[in-house]
Structures are given as structure tokens and as C-alpha cells.
């Protein structure tokens, strides 16, 4: 049994701020030391911003919780110094099976595209990810970065002002106040920060309960995602089996509405269900059991003056598709470079409005996809079930029905089509790298592309001339000059040029495309830089 989540990782320590005669003002306070809060803090600290993380607890999360991490978050976490550990510890998978009633209706292979540094998915318990993030915080501290985590510091009151935020914090000893230039609220779906500020959180409630169990077993199940619709061991409901490291398996069982969570959670009720699913001869041990219900909803706005919401506090989805934590990392990835420019006076505060519009677009996409998966898995009407079962019956015999089977549309990053930061597409290039897109990775002769684009504005030129550095109103853009001569697999050509013979891309610090043209044009690219930083 793994005990990592029972050890205090950032125990309460008395701070000088608690005895200060006047209230201390910090640059950024992050509320919540979950994966998203820690990622935000690391991102800011790596950019030299002073950041304090407050958490009401002092340890990593209990139970596996978020377990499925997609390629894009792995690319983001690579820039934050955590992906190598995740890939090494995690379980990779790309195959799955779909069962209906008593039979397997089909199996699938995600058939990953070659030429990416990271796999499509890694399964890893959330507590390991949090541990890696805390390790990274400690590493940054050892290098002298201005970042700290304060355990058992619970925010009990918040005051929002146009140019700062005030908070009151309860500790095991006493209460104290802090001021911050900016506050990022990453305190989860139940977000006390959101409640204290009296902000809305509306959406659709799904009347269903799911039992989630981490089971330790020595079994021969392969590293695959198995999904059951209406299985004999959970009649009329669904089930999911997924592998995690350390011989731990995630089992999700749909229970339906109107069950008593406390009763269902008891081992004497859970174990017989699992025996029915796994067979009598499989030996297993329960590590963690939880019952969850869910909603698909988001805040109307993610930014309220100087309080900015990110992750589950801002938007909540059903778990099908692993779009919760994965989208949270894309929130902070989108936010932190903008916040740095605004804090340094290199961009207007209105640049942060694009955090709202871009990440709300993403949240709506995630809510739409996860709601549809939920409607397929748990049909809400008789006819919905008839159609669902028809799809499943047909899928066993005919390939055409398989794309209609929806047991979760797995997390992919959002393309910010229509964002005010994009310049008009001027390259006859591939659709996948149009302005607003996250840059696809590509193997070059000297390593992968994405690490060369990390954390700064880049002018990517492919067989095109351009200055090595452009300075435009406080923004420095450095050129990355590439050629199809260094494109051994033709992935660069395929993903960035298509039919074009040359290309110049303006790429944001979060590795999204801001503008692209066949060749460099000083005036137009300077305009694109201003546009990408909220100045046009």
C-alpha cells in the first residue's frame, strides 16, 4: 500500500508575515496546492515572479483522483521540469476494448502519430504528480527562486480591489492578513474563493453517482482502457478499468441516482461488486474508494479584477475524456506569460481579457464533449438508450458505427480560433498549425521542436530569412531558424508548411501560433506582435 499521501509534504511553519507590524504585500498569491496551483506557481517563479502558495492542507491528495495525463499537459509540464518523472513513473497505453452486455464489441488502437516527444497519454496517480511538482518547487527554492508553499494556511476572507487583493488566513496558531498584487484561485470545484466572492457557477447537474476504487492486484490485465456498457456485473450501468503504476487499477462503476454514498462506499458493499467484475480467483486489496457525482459548468468570467480563477474552480466537467486536470494546466499555461507581461508593464492589463475569452472557449469545448460522452454512457431517455444500444450492436459488426461509440472523447488542446490575439492566416499551410493552434511537436536533427519554443516569443522561420531578434515595445522576439534540411522525417514540412515552400511563424510563449506568413515582413510582424500582446 502506498503511503505517499499520508506524509505531510509542506507542514505548517510560522511565517514572519504572521508577526509583521504591517500587512505584507506579495506579488502573486496562489490559493490551492493541487496540480494546477503548483503548476501556476512554478511557471511564475521560473519567470522570476515572487509567489506564495497557500493550502488548507499540508499533503498531496488522498487517492488517485486525476490519473490520465494527455500529451499537451505533458508538454507544458516539461517546460515546468516535471514531465520526465511523470513519463518514467507513469503507465503508457494506447489500446482499449469496448464491451456491451456480455461481449466484447470491438477493440481499438489510438494509433499515435509518430514524431512527438511525449505519448498521447500517461496514467499516473494525482498524488505522484503533486509530489513531482512539490519536488520541483524545492529545487527552485534551492536555486534561490522566490517561491514558497504554506501548509495549513486556510483563506477565510477575501477582499477584491482594482489594484490589489486582501486576504485573511487562518493557521493552526492564529489568523493573519496578506495583500497581493494578483491572486490565482486554484482551489478546486468547490472553490471557497469563488463562494467568498459570491461568483456564479452554473451549468448542468447530472443525476448519477459513480463509485471509484483504486485496487491493488497482481493481475494479467494488459495496459489498456476497458469500458463496459451495461455489463452483467453492473446491469444497466457502465464500468471502466484503467491501469496505474504500482499494480494499482482504477475501477469506475456507475451506480445510478438515489443511492446512499456512505453505504455504497463501505468495503463490505464494494468488495462483492469488484469480485463480480474481476472474477472470484483474482486477489485484490482496496487502496481507496470514493463516490462522486458531477456537473458540467463554468464561471461566467474567470477573471474578477485581480482575482483569477484557473482549473476546476473556474470550470467543471464530467470525468469522461480526462478533460479536468488536463485543461487546468492549459489555463495556467495561457495565463502566466500574460500576467508576467502585465506585471512588468510590457502589456496592458486588458491582455488578461484574452485569458478569459481563450480559456472560456476551451472550457465550453470540454463541457460540450464531456456532456455528450456522459449522455452516451448514461442515456437520459428511453429513445436515447435505444439509439445508444443500436450503435453498440452495430459497432460489433460494422466499422462505421465505431466513431459513434462515445465512452469519452479524450482531452486534446483547444485551438483559439477567433482570438483577438491572432493575426489573419496568410500562409497556405496545414490547418493544424493555423493561428490559434497549439504548435505540434516535430523531431529535428538535433532534438524535438517544442523545447526550442518554450516560455518566450519566437519567430520560427522555415527556409525563410528574418532578423535574429525583433524588439517591439518591450517585447523581445528571438528567431529560431529551421530548414527542411534538418527535417529528417518530414514532420516539420508536414505540420508547418504543407504545400508551401517556406514559412514564418510568430509563436507565443505558450507555444500557440499567433501569426504565419510565407516570408518575413517587418511591418506586418511588428503588428502581429502588438496584436498578440493586446496592443491592437
Amino acid at each position, binding site marked *: 500500500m502506498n503511503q505517499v499521501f499520508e506524509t505531510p509534504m509542506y507542514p505548517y511553519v510560522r511565517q514572519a508575515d504572521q508577526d509583521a507590524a504591517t500587512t505584507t504585500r506579495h506579488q502573486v498569491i496562489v490559493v490551492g496546492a493541487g496540480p494546477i496551483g503548483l503548476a501556476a506557481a512554478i511557471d511564475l517563479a521560473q519567470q522570476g515572479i515572487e509567489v506564495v502558495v497557500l493550502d488548507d492542507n499540508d499533503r498531496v491528495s488522498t487517492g488517485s483522483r486525476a490519473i490520465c495525463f494527455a500529451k499537451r499537459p505533458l508538454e507544458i509540464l516539461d517546460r515546468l521540469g516535471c514531465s520526465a518523472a511523470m513519463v518514467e513513473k507513469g503507465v503508457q497505453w494506447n489500446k482499449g476494448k469496448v464491451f456491451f452486455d456480455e461481449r466484447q464489441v470491438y477493440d481499438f488502437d489510438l494509433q499515435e502519430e509518430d514524431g512527438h516527444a511525449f505519448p498521447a497519454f500517461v496514467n499516473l496517480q494525482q498524488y505522484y504528480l503533486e509530489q513531482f511538482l512539490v519536488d520541483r518547487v524545492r529545487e527552485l527554492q534551492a536555486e534561490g527562486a522566490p517561491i514558497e508553499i504554506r501548509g495549513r494556511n486556510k483563506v477565510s476572507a477575501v477582499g477584491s480591489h482594482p489594484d490589489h487583493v486582501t486576504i485573511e488566513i487562518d493557521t493552526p496558531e492564529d489568523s493573519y492578513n496578506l495583500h497581493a498584487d494578483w491572486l490565482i484561485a486554484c482551489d478546486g470545484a468547490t472553490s471557497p474563493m469563488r463562494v467568498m466572492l459570491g461568483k456564479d457557477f452554473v451549468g448542468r447537474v447530472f443525476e448519477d453517482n459513480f463509485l471509484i476504487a483504486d485496487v491493488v492486484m497482481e493481475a494479467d490485465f494488459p495496459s489498456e482502457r476497458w469500458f463496459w456498457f451495461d455489463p452483467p456485473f453492473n446491469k444497466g450501468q457502465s464500468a471502466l478499468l484503467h491501469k496505474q503504476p504500482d499494480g494499482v487499477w482504477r475501477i469506475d462503476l456507475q451506480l445510478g441516482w438515489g443511492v446512499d454514498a456512505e453505504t455504497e462506499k463501505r468495503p463490505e458493499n464494494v468488495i462483492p461488486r469488484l469480485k463480480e467484475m474481476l472474477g472470484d480467483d483474482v486477489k485484490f486489496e482496496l487502496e481507496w474508494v470514493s463516490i462522486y457525482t458531477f456537473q458540467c459548468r463554468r464561471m461566467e468570467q474567470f477573471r474578477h479584477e485581480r482575482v483569477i480563477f484557473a482549473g476546476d474552480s473556474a470550470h467543471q466537467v464530467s470525468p469522461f475524456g480526462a478533460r479536468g486536470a488536463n485543461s487546468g494546466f492549459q489555463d495556467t499555461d495561457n495565463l502566466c506569460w500574460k500576467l508576467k507581461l502585465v506585471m512588468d508593464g510590457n502589456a496592458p492589463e486588458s491582455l488578461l481579457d484574452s485569458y478569459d475569452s481563450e480559456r472560456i472557449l476551451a472550457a465550453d469545448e470540454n463541457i460540450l464533449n464531456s456532456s455528450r460522452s456522459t*449522455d*452516451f454512457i448514461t442515456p437520459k431517455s428511453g*429513445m436515447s438508450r435505444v439509439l445508444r444500444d443500436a450503435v453498440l450492436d*452495430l459497432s460489433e459488426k460494422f466499422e*462505421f458505427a465505431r466513431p459513434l461509440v462515445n465512452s469519452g472523447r479524450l482531452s486534446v488542446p483547444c485551438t483559439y480560433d477567433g482570438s483577438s490575439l491572432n493575426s489573419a492566416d496568410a500562409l497556405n499551410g496545414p490547418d493544424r498549425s493555423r493561428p490559434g493552434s497549439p504548435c505540434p511537436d516535430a523531431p529535428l536533427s538535433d532534438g524535438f521542436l517544442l523545447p526550442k519554443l518554450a516560455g518566450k516569443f519566437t519567430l520560427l522561420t522555415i527556409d525563410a530569412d528574418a532578423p535574429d531578434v525583433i524588439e517591439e515595445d518591450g517585447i523581445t522576439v528571438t528567431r529560431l531558424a529551421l530548414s527542411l534540411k534538418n527535417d529528417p522525417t518530414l514532420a516539420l514540412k508536414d505540420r508547418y508548411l504543407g504545400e508551401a515552400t517556406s514559412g514564418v511563424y510568430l509563436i507565443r510563449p505558450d507555444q500557440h501560433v499567433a501569426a504565419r506568413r510565407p516570408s518575413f515582413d517587418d511591418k506586418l510582424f511588428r503588428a502581429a506582435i502588438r496584436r498578440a500582446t493586446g496592443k491592437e
Partner: protein
Amino acid sequence: MSDLTLTPNIDGADDFYAELLATHDGLSREESDALNARLVLVLSNHIGDRTVLAQALAAATLKISA
């Protein structure tokens, strides 16, 4: 002579499926059954080709394989 298409052929399959479900929103089971029957007839007429229609009828029985 053409053959019944049994490989994926709908662009934006999830969008289509959502539209199909939405068409049934608020209908009683009887009304939904009637809607499905009308839909079968509309689509059959669009296909027109009797050979393809015969193949479709057989496929729907699940007694043949692709």
C-alpha cells in the same frame, strides 16, 4: 452497381449524433418511434438504389458481417 457503405462516412460524427438526439428531445416514446420510422423512409428514398437498400435491411438485422 454500388455497395452499402459500412465504413465511417459521417463528418463530425459526434455533432450528428447530438443533432439526432436533439430531434427526439421532448417527444414521447410513441412520437419518437414515429419519428424514427419517418427518418428511415426519408433516408431510404434518398438512397433509392434497391440493391443498397436490400443490403441495408440485411445489415440492420445484424445477421451479416461487413
